[in-house]
């Protein structure tokens, strides 16, 4: 029953590799797809592509700004997925977006459009466990794996139930807060990794507040990998382009490979 996205991550993890998933906001600048390719070339194990939403409540200032810019430039779910479809990459792709974009399109239609664009997993950060059933069904039919978030506020029994439903990987939320770069790694990042590893053997990746290669290494003492969003997106916002993204991903890769 393990889907291809999860299978890919499991195989790499079981081979002893720490997993690295950079996040890039779809539609951010003319050459955002080149940034995806640069991230892949620099050693990403999968890439998470954000479909920008008008009201991203789980995102801090960096990804808010990226979303605003992409939307102002005219990005839509359709335009972003059209560009994703053209990507030639050898690793699986995930999409992160908010529930309303899927809901408005129709859950089944949205899930199929992800699949048709070559996306094999999706993260909807404003869809908690209790609301996931309709999406689980639609995504399942379309062959899209449903990643679920697990937060530090969840009691252990809830973590168990989340891991039972999650597919692809379980996304450990590294801190109490929204996405964004932080000077230091929160203690909660390692804690959520430890707690999740105790209850599941599916890949456990930690994101939100993992901003530097050193922080990634620290979390990966317990986690199977990291998701790096704001630090990567900042490269694009600051005009460093695909090369900036590639360089940063390479630094994470080298640090994780030790």
């Amino acid at each position, binding site marked *: 029953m393990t889907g291809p996205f999860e299978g890919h991550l499991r195989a790499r993890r079981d081979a002893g590799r720490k997993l690295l998933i950079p996040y890039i906001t779809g539609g951010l600048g003319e050459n955002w797809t080149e940034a995806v390719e640069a991230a892949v070339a620099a050693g990403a194990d999968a890439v998470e592509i954000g479909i920008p939403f008008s009201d991203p409540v789980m995102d801090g200032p960096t990804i808010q700004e990226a979303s605003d810019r992409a939307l102002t430039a005219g990005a839509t779910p359709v335009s972003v997925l059209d560009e994703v479809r053209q990507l030639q990459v050898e690793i699986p792709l995930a999409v992160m977006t908010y*529930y*309303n974009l899927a*809901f*408005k399109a129709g859950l089944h239609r949205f899930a199929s459009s992800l699949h048709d664009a070559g996306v094999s997993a999706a993260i909807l950060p404003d869809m908690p*466990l209790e609301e996931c059933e309709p999406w689980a069904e639609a995504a399942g039919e379309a062959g899209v794996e449903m990643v679920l978030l697990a937060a*530090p*506020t969840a009691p252990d029994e*809830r973590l168990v139930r989340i891991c039972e439903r999650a597919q692809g990987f379980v996304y450990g939320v590294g801190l109490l807060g929204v996405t964004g770069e932080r000077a230091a790694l929160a203690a909660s990042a390692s804690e959520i990794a430890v707690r999740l590893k105790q209850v599941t053997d599916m890949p456990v990746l930690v994101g939100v507040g993992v901003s530097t290669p050193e922080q990634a290494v620290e979390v990966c003492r317990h986690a199977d990998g990291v998701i790096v969003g704001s630090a990567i997106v900042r490269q694009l916002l600051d005009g460093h382009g695909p090369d900036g993204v590639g360089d940063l991903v390479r630094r994470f890769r080298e640090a994780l490979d030790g």
Partner: protein
Amino acid sequence: MVMQEPSPEGRFGEFGGRFVPETLVPACQALEAAFRTAWADDAYRKRLDGLLNDYAGRPSPLTECGRLSEELGLRLLLKREDLNHTGSHKINNVLGQALLAERMGKTRLVAETGAGQHGVATATAAALLGLECVVYMGEVDIERQALNVFKMRLLGADVRAAASGSRTLKDAINEAMRDWVATVETSHYCLGSVMGPHPYPWMVREFHRVIGEEARSQCLQLLGGDPDTVVACVGGGSNAAGIFSGFADTDTALVGVEPAGGAAVGRGVPGVVHGSKSYLMQDEFGQVQEAESISAGLDYPGVGPEHSHLAAIGRARYEAVTDDEVIQAFQLLARTEGIIPALEPAHALAWISRARAELSGQTVLLNLSGRGDKDVPQMMEILS
């Protein structure tokens, strides 16, 4: 049974639910449990009633309009929420939530505000109970509601500008939710309307039920029965939910009035934002549209889920009025009754005035949700 408890999942028909980041789910569950226990606890209810009466000034009067009734050709009654402490209905909900926060051991209140009335009420309750208070307000609203910003600061609140998106109420809610995600262990999110994730739409309606219950018995005394029509303005829909709940099981017609530029029920289609499924103004892809209204308190593209349900089952109807009609109604009430209304309930009067032929000869109860002091500077500019 309408306007009772939602389903265990927080649904009113197909609307509602709990669409929040996973981080907030345990806090929503804890809040629901705390509310259920408190609401059934005599000591809590007594303390809340005590504050509502001796601090906020309840019960609010029912005023029968003389000159305006004659002018409109109907019998107009006003439920005077404008006379509450802090100047609007918002205090009913805030006192309930602040006492709950204290019960849950939270030391900090986070709130969003549009017109500033909910922010002022929250800052007031925080001062009263010795809680820390942070209020998010859109940059546009900070400008047009300067008086309330000053009041909140005077009351000891930290007022923070929401600078993203349309820089109005919707964006203030985004910022408040982001704050709550980061501070959930010590903070209670004191949401200001019947929206957001379960249990808020239900809980906030229950805190405002007092409006409807008082009005029902006041009407019974005055009229010997129920009014023909109850009218209230709808932003998120809390004052409307409060007064509707007193008449939901009667034959009284219920009318919610939205601004034309923020008519979620009138122009929206179902969507999911800010924690629940409800009618929402959005584009073809599901991006939330920016509302545009003269009234900061109604400048919101969504609506509470129970109103979507009441509209869907036909128990309430929802109408929209233009800014120009509101400006007329604002002056009309001042000139004929000596009452300067807030711009929000002026929407309700604007619809009554427009629909006077249809309402001719009826007894119409308007929920006068707030007073107009905050809007006077803005109206001075518009009318000069």
